């Protein structure tokens, strides 16, 4: 009997590893190995004219991460984040509040509000060229959105990103609101809560985990913003919209990969920090509830 169980266990283990194999092979080649390579690129300076490499170590990485180029990319990324994340959250809540309502035809409005999900970042950026392009844009005379000025370029790129995310933010916040049991709202109404108070005391606390989830998605998206910058501003004017990822892509064609790889490590640490932050906040919330 024991023999049968053992062979059964062995068979199950073999099957388990076989089912994981395709996935693990893909990840080994295109996730773990490149991560290892990025660290390797960052630790060694390779010279353009020869195959020689020189070990620059963690000091080399630190030199890049404390250098002007990385700091400027980081600051521009943070600025982009400050333009897009709060706006995304506010618009999501606003639209979901307006459309979470028992009205005839509300599904049509909900579909329209969700519709920008269909638009990729590239499509949104081309769409926004019809608004902010200096020659052809509808807002060509609005200096606030002039892509030829650093401030206007940042606002134009941010506005296009916020619009592209309207559908996503709406869908996520609406789902959060729909998950609030109707009884709670009814009880609050019976207790004499007026709509504004009910919104602040019931709705906002109840959807706060949803808002955290959405905030994390928006922050990660802003760390990875690329197409809107390439299509709308090419990083300009005067490199004022060169985010971290944009700078990294500019460096990747060169033989010297040390700078780009070090910056990519910086981007990884930022992504990691956001995820750890999300985990800690969710954990705290769970304890709070208990």
């Amino acid at each position, binding site marked *: 009997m024991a023999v049968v169980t053992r062979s059964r266990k062995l068979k199950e283990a073999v099957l388990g590893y076989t089912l994981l194999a395709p996935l693990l092979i893909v990840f080994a080649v295109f996730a773990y190995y490149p991560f290892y390579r990025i660290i390797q690129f960052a630790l060694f300076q390779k010279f353009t004219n020869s195959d020689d490499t020189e070990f620059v170590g963690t000091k080399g990485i630190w030199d890049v991460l404390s250098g002007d180029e990385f700091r400027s990319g980081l600051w521009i990324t943070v600025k982009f984040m400050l333009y897009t994340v709060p706006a995304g959250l506010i618009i999501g809540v606003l639209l979901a509040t307006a459309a979470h309502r028992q009205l005839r035809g509300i599904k049509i409005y909900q579909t329209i509000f969700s519709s920008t999900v269909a638009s990729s970042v590239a499509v949104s950026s081309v*769409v926004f060229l019809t608004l902010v392009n200096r020659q052809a844009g509808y807002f060509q005379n609005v200096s606030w959105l002039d892509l030829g000025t650093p401030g206007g370029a940042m606002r134009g790129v941010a506005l296009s990103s916020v619009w592209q995310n309207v559908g996503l933010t709406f869908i996520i916040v609406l789902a959060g609101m729909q998950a609030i049991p109707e009884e709670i709202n009814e009880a609050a109404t019976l207790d004499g809560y007026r709509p504004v108070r009910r919104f602040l005391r019931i709705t906002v606390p109840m959807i706060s985990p949803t808002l955290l*989830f959405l905030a994390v998605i928006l922050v990660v998206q802003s760390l*990875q913003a690329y197409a809107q910058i390439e299509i709308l501003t090419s990083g300009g004017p005067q490199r004022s919209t060169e985010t971290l990822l944009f700078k990294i892509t500019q460096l990747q064609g060169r033989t010297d990969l040390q700078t780009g790889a070090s910056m990519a490590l910086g981007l990884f640490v930022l992504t990691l920090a956001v995820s750890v932050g999300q985990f800690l906040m969710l954990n705290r919330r769970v304890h709070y509830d208990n």
Partner: protein
Amino acid sequence: MTTSDEDNGRNGAGAPGGSKLAKAGWYVLLTALALLILFPIYMTFIRAISGGTASLFQRKPSLLPVATDWGSFYNAFSDGELGKPILQSLFITALIVVAQTFTSTIAAYAFAFLEFPLKKVLFGFIMVTLLLPIEVTLIANVQTMFDINLISINDPSYLKTLGALTLPFLATALGVFLIRQGFLGIPGDLLDAARLDGYSDFAFMWKIAVPVTRPIVGSFIVISFLGAYNQYVWPRFAVKSDKYETIQIALRGFLSDNPNQLNWGFASALIAAVPVLVLLLVFQRQLVRGLTAGAVK
């Protein structure tokens, strides 16, 4: 959550409309918001049907088409060769979606129903890849592709480009996570009973586990399609020949290659969104469930 199949129970209907006046107020607000959201699309449409040079050099912004020319939607295909990148995108998307669904389903099955050493460690290893998006590993992956000659500047054949565009995306941790969640909802007794009835693991997976979790698998397929069709960064650096571009990358080329025919570019952007728009309208429920997975606990 209530956006599931059994929608519109007690939850989720939302606030009542209120008095007639209040209702009218809400309709005005909702309509205003809808128009605001649709305005960029409207302007793109107007630009797409405005004659090329006229629209480019007119200095006064106009809300109506100038020198109306409906031909741009046709010309984008005939002269702009829009069809090729769209087909390329759809083909690559299909490959990625099928592969991701397959690799995710079998891996999720292993994690949900089988026991083997290092199971938890391996699960952790797989989830960690969510922290390594292609944006972070871009530099190294481009190098690897050069090394194995799938990205080649001198000789970018179609098969190589196809490999470069799809190989890194044949598996995703998100799919494993979502489908495993679905499988975990199936009672273990069911597997034992099926085994007694002579079901093999594959028969159980294919005939019971997958059909039971169809809503979740469906949601994953929809968001996998959305991600693969809309992606920009990797194809931008993996494709070295205009001939094999995906539609998202081709949109940019359209504008810079035809500065006097910006209307084609604008028409192309609208056409490029059509496949995803259809997906959104037909599989709205799956899309919402996929996008909000993890949002509402």
